[in-house]
């Protein structure tokens, strides 16, 4: 029944609201339909009448039935139903234009209702316990309401509420009563009933009660309560119970409550809360939009423009209604324009607003129901508004230098440009956008915008300007990114990969075009620099290097030249192209046009370092077997450049570190030959010399040291090495070369070095018995220091040996008066007295008796000489230097002997008798015998002292042999010039190679020494063994060989010292050699003892460890 009722009402409503326009067909159709409806209603009335009859009959026939009340209730409902059908039919049958029923027609309806009321009252009376009496009362009240009998209605509803307070029907009754009072403006009465509903358990009518109560609160200006009630009505669960009777049934309470809430919301909450608030409440987009629209309109009406704009902005993107949206975007614009000029956010939403305008216009353009004229007009109007919004914001951003606003303005421009492509101001807005992007520091986008503008222009100043601006913007964008990345290396940059690529490629392409088109433009250098930078940043180092190099060559005085130069070099470095890096750096260093001297200096350093690294890398890349060959090949390639030297030197250093003698000599030699001025020769000569020493290749070592000092005299160790060279030469017996070295030292050295040079030179010439040279050297030394004992002695010695006795005597005598200050002086002073004695001895020997008359005078003269000579010899003896003490003793013995003979042979004065003559002769003989006796005693002392001191020279031998004759002790020491075969040289080289690698290996030194002794190369042996003895001074083998070598060289005293050590260590060869030495010098007992301790079979007489004299000594011993 209810459903039918709704349909009828809906149909009626449709009929009423149908537009009048619409053709006659529809009209006739309506009439027909109406007839059909009336017929159907008539049929329904008949059916209901029949049902009433049937029900009445049933009631009559069932007086005691328990469902009788139900039947009566059914009857009442049938009356109600009938009244409605009748009402409907009457309404359909009324004439057109008549709105209400009058007179009799209304009466028919009222009769049915009255019957119904009577029937309901019968039930209440006859069946007071009927369980549906609440419903009966509700229906009865309702019928009163239908009849317009409101007083009865109020009583009936009130009775229902009293009798059935918690019944659902009582809830609805309260609602109806509330509405009744509400409609009459009796707010307090209405409020009581609505609140009564809400106090009951939740029902389908509660939302309505809340809704109504919400309005009451608005009237009471209790907006917060009102909003709560509306909100509660919206969010409460929907009840699926039947709807209420009457208007409440056709009302979507929740939607209405939502819309009604707009009022209190605007009073209680903030506009910006609206979107979130209603989005949460609304069940659908349409309800949400309806609420927002209502609210926005309310704000707009209230001239709260920021709030209305805020909500319209929310609505436009969601709304599908183009027409409405046009209104809304205009309202947005008006809101913005009407906002206070002081409002800082006035144009803050320009981008979104322009977007809204653009989107709306675009949709409007496609709407079929508008004419082209309308569209054109609207497009124009909105273009003006969009442009105004964007430019106003941009102007504000410029005024305030606000980058964020500029960014929004740029976005607004972008929106504008996306639609209004035909606008007259389009190019201007393009430029504005580029400018805004620049101001917003969105340089990449700015660059792209400038580029887009330039693309549409012809070549000319405007295009050039745009392109340059684009290039500058791209550059700035990339630069900022680079700076950021450098500062935050672990974070992503400001630009993503695509943006980086866009920026770089953009700059490269535009730059290339710029340079190509306007090569003489003032900005070209900057453009070129930036283009090159792009290649560098993209890792295209080959191209980057080419461009930066070209930049430096083209703009050598530019402030960026040094940066460009550095980047050019760095690009080559990044490519690991060290060879080109070295060349380019050297080219920069030599380019005098480059203004930045610091950069050129730096380039020079880089060139050096690159060359070095290039060589090092070549070394690393070269296999061991190919190393030498590769280095030489690289050297050949770069012979004329510093790089060539680097290759040789690197190879040299490698071999030096590996102690590879051949490699060091090979590459060192090449270095010396190819780069004689190279400062690296300091290392080369020093190293080669040191290697030569280590390899016992002393001649080469001396050469290297000499060359070193000759080429690098300023080096701190130059004179030290020269001294070493002289010493080596001296030990090698190369006196000329030794002298040359010392002469150079004397010339270039300091005072101490000069003194050493003097000493060594004197030693050299003394050993070489070059008396003339010795005299010159000694004289030179005396010029430096006239009180130098050693020099004076050597000058005296030189004179003496030259036969310049007077000079000799003068110098020796002067020397004898001087103080010994050094070891050299000390050594000299021992010999000095002996030599002086020897000189006097020569003169003494020349004093002979001539005649009787002068005999006394001669005797006295000779005696004076004897005394002087005695004094000198005694001086030598008491000097403690046994080597010269023994000759002095021997000389003294000889002098006494001679003096004895001299006296004995004195002429006898004339006029003496025979007896007197005999007596005189006896007296002389006696006197002579005394001296001869003294001579024998001295000789014995000499023998004793020789044995004691073990002196090995001719004087000692003479003393030991009891010989008092003059001794020729002159010996010349010089290196024997041997002619060794190739085999010896090869063996020596092999041993030296090993020795360099194991410089402490004494066994190798011993091997070298033995080979040297075998071929008579005693000086080499001596030097090698001296080196070995430094390493292992206790080795008997080394000492033995040293002794043998000294012996070969004629230094018997040194030989004894070494052999004695070897013998004491029980080395058979040592004992044998010592024995033979003893035997050679006349120490018979010692020789017996030493040789006796050696069994013949235990030593190899052919060994270089055994002196050839051993064989002789052994055989002599065997014979004896």
């Amino acid at each position, binding site marked *: 029944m209810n459903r039918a009722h709704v349909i009828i009402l809906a149909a009626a409503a449709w009929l009423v609201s149908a537009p009048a326009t619409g053709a006659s067909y529809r009209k006739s159709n309506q009439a027909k339909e109406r007839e059909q409806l009336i017929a159907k209603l008539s049929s329904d009335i008949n059916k209901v009448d029949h049902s009433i009859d049937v029900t009445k009959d049933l009631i009559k026939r069932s007086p005691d039935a328990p469902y009788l009340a139900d039947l009566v209730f059914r009857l009442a409902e049938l009356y109600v139903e009938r009244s409605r059908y009748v009402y409907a039919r009457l309404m359909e049958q009324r004439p057109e234009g008549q709105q209400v029923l009058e007179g009799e027609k209304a009466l028919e309806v009222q009769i049915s209702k009255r019957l119904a009321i009577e029937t309901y009252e019968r039930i209440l009376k006859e069946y007071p316990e009927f369980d549906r009496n609440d419903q009966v009362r509700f229906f009865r009240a309702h019928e009163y309401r239908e009849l317009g009998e409101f007083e009865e209605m109020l009583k009936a509803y009130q009775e229902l509420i009293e009798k059935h307070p918690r019944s659902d029907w009582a809830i609805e009754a309260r609602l109806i009563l509330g509405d009744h009072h509400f409609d009459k403006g009796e707010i307090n009465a209405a409020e009581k009933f609505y609140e009564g509903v809400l106090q009951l358990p939740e029902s389908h009518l509660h939302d309505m009660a809340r809704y109504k109560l919400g309005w009451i609160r608005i009237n009471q200006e209790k907006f917060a309560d009102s909003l709560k009630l509306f909100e509660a009505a919206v969010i409460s669960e929907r009840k699926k119970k039947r709807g209420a009777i009457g208007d409440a049934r056709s009302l979507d309470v929740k939607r209405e409550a939502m819309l009604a809430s707009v009022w209190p919301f605007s009073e209680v909450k903030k506009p910006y809360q609206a979107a979130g608030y209603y989005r949460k409440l609304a069940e659908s987009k349409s309800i949400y939009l309806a609420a927002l629209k209502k609210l926005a309109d309310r704000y707009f009406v209230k001239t709260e423009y920021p709030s209305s704009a805020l909500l319209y902005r929310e609505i436009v993107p969601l709304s599908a209604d183009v027409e409405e949206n046009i209104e809304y975007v205009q309202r947005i614009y008006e809101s913005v324009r009407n906002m206070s000029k002081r409002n800082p956010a006035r144009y803050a939403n320009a981008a979104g607003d322009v977007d809204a305008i653009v989107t709306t216009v675009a949709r409007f353009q496609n709407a079929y129901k508008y004419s082209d004229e309308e569209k054109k007009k609207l497009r124009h109007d909105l273009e003006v508004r969009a442009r105004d919004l964007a430019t106003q914001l941009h102007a504000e951003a410029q005024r305030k230098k606000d980058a964020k606003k500029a960014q929004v303005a740029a976005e607004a421009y972008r929106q504008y440009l996306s639609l209004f492509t035909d606008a007259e101001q389009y190019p201007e807005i393009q430029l504005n956008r580029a400018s805004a992007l620049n101001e917003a520091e969105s340089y990449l986008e700015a660059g792209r915008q400038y580029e887009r503008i330039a693309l549409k222009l012809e070549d000319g100043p405007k295009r050039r300007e745009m392109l340059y601006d684009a290039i500058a913007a791209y550059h700035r964008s990339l630069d900022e990114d680079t700076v950021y990345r450098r500062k935050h290396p672990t974070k992503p940059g400001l630009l993503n990969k695509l943006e980086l690529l866009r920026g770089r490629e953009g700059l490269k392409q*535009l730059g290339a075009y710029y340079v190509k088109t306007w090569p003489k433009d003032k900005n070209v250098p900057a453009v070129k620099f930036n283009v090159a930078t792009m290649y560098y940043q993209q890792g295209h180092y080959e191209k980057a290097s080419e461009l930066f190099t070209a930049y430096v060559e083209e703009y050598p005085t530019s402030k960026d030249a040094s940066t460009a130069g550095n980047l050019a070099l760095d690009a080559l470095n990044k490519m690991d192209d060290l060879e080109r890096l070295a060349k380019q750096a050297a080219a920069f260093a030599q380019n005098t046009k480059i203004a930045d001297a610091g950069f050129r200096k730096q380039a020079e350093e880089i060139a050096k370092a690159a060359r070095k690294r290039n060589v090092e890398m070549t070394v690393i890349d070269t296999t061991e077997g190919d190393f030498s060959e590769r280095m030489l090949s690289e050297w050949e390639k770069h012979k004329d450049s510093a790089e060539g030297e680097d290759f040789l030197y690197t190879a040299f250093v490698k071999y030096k570190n590996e102690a590879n003698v051949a490699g060091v000599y090979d590459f060192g030699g090449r270095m010396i030959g190819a780069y004689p001025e190279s400062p690296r020769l300091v290392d080369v000569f020093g190293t080669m010399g040191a290697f030569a020493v280590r390899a016992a290749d002393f001649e080469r070592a001396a050469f290297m040291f000499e060359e070193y000092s000759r080429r690098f005299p300023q080096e701190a160790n130059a004179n030290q090495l020269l001294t070493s060279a002289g010493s080596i030469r001296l030990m090698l017996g190369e006196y000329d070369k030794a002298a040359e070295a010392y002469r150079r030292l004397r010339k270039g050295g300091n005072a101490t070095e000069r003194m050493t040079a003097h000493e060594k030179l004197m030693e050299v010439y003394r050993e070489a018995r070059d008396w003339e040279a010795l005299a010159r050297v000694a004289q030179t030394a005396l010029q430096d220091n006239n009180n130098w004992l050693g020099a004076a002695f050597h000058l005296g010695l030189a004179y003496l040996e030259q036969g310049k006795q007077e000079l000799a005597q003068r110098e020796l005598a002067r020397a004898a008066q001087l103080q010994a200050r050094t070891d050299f002086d000390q050594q000299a002073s021992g010999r000095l007295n002996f030599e002086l004695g020897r000189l006097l001895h020569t003169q003494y020997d020349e004093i002979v008796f001539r005649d009787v008359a002068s005999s006394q005078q001669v005797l006295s003269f000779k005696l004076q000489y004897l005394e002087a000579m005695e004094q000198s010899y005694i001086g030598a003896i008491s000097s403690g230097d046994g080597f010269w003490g023994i000759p002095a003793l021997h000389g003294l013995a000889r002098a006494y002997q001679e003096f004895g003979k001299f006296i004995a042979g004195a002429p006898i004065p004339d006029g003496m008798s025979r007896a007197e003559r005999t007596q005189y002769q006896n007296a002389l003989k006696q006197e002579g015998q005394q001296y001869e006796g003294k001579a024998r005693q001295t000789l014995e002392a000499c023998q004793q002292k020789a044995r004691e001191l073990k002196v090995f020279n001719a004087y000692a031998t003479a003393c030991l042999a009891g010989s008092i004759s003059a001794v020729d002790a002159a010996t010349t020491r010089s290196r024997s010039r041997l002619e060794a075969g190739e085999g010896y040289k090869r063996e020596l080289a092999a041993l030296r190679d090993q020795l360099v690698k194991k410089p402490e290996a004494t066994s190798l030194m011993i091997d070298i020494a033995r080979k040297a002794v075998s071929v008579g190369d005693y000086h080499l042996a001596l030097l090698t063994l001296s080196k070995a003895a430094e390493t292992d001074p206790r080795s008997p083998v080394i000492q033995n060989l040293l002794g043998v070598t000294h012996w070969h060289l004629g230094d018997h005293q040194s030989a004894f010292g070494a052999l004695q050590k070897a013998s004491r260590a029980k080395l058979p060869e040592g004992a044998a050699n010592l024995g033979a030495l003893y035997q050679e010098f006349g120490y018979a007992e010692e020789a017996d003892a030493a040789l006796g301790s050696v069994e013949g079979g235990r030593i190899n007489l052919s060994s270089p460890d055994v002196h050839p004299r051993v064989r002789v000594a052994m055989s002599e011993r065997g014979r004896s």
Partner: protein
Amino acid sequence: MSWRPMLLVWLAACLSGCGLRHTVDRSLLSEIAMEYKLTLFDAENEVSIAMDERDHIVRQIQELKRDIAEAERQQEDASADGVRARRNNQAEKAALADQAAEVFGLKVDYLEARLDLLRTRLDVQSTFVDVARAKLELAKAQLVERNNVRGAESVNVAKFEQQVEDYVGRAKKAQEMLNRVQGEVDEVKATWLAAREKLNQASGGGWGSPWAEDGGVWGTE
């Protein structure tokens, strides 16, 4: 160029019979403890390095092909510029554009010569790969011999050493030939650069400038 076929023929002759003559069966190594096999890693690494280098050359070839296509496009653009300039009675500009087209033509020549060189380098690199492989086999042979595993008697280290020497000799010769031909490519490059410099001078630093070299096509599309 004349040298590449020569080299190819030579390489083909040398490598006839393809593959290493002497190899060590991996099964011989199975009984050798891992710590002794460490010596093989270096040799295996060498093979990987040589092969990586070969791949690198392949990539360079691909890049170079793109460069050639780009240069050809630039040549076409320059020619089109010339035609347009003539149509607009800009004789000077037309002459410059023609000159630019020629220069790009020379650039194409140079890039093609480089492409040829790279292809040859690829062939030569293959010989280096063979050397590395031969060394790996030698290392395996030495390992087998040193550990005297079952089957070691069949491995003759001297033959492996000889094999390495043969391949090294071959690679050296190939490298020498390559070095010689590098000079020829340099000559072609020099010709192109000289022409480019002339163009650079004629255009006053525009056309022919190294800056305009790789990006002169902006605005043409």
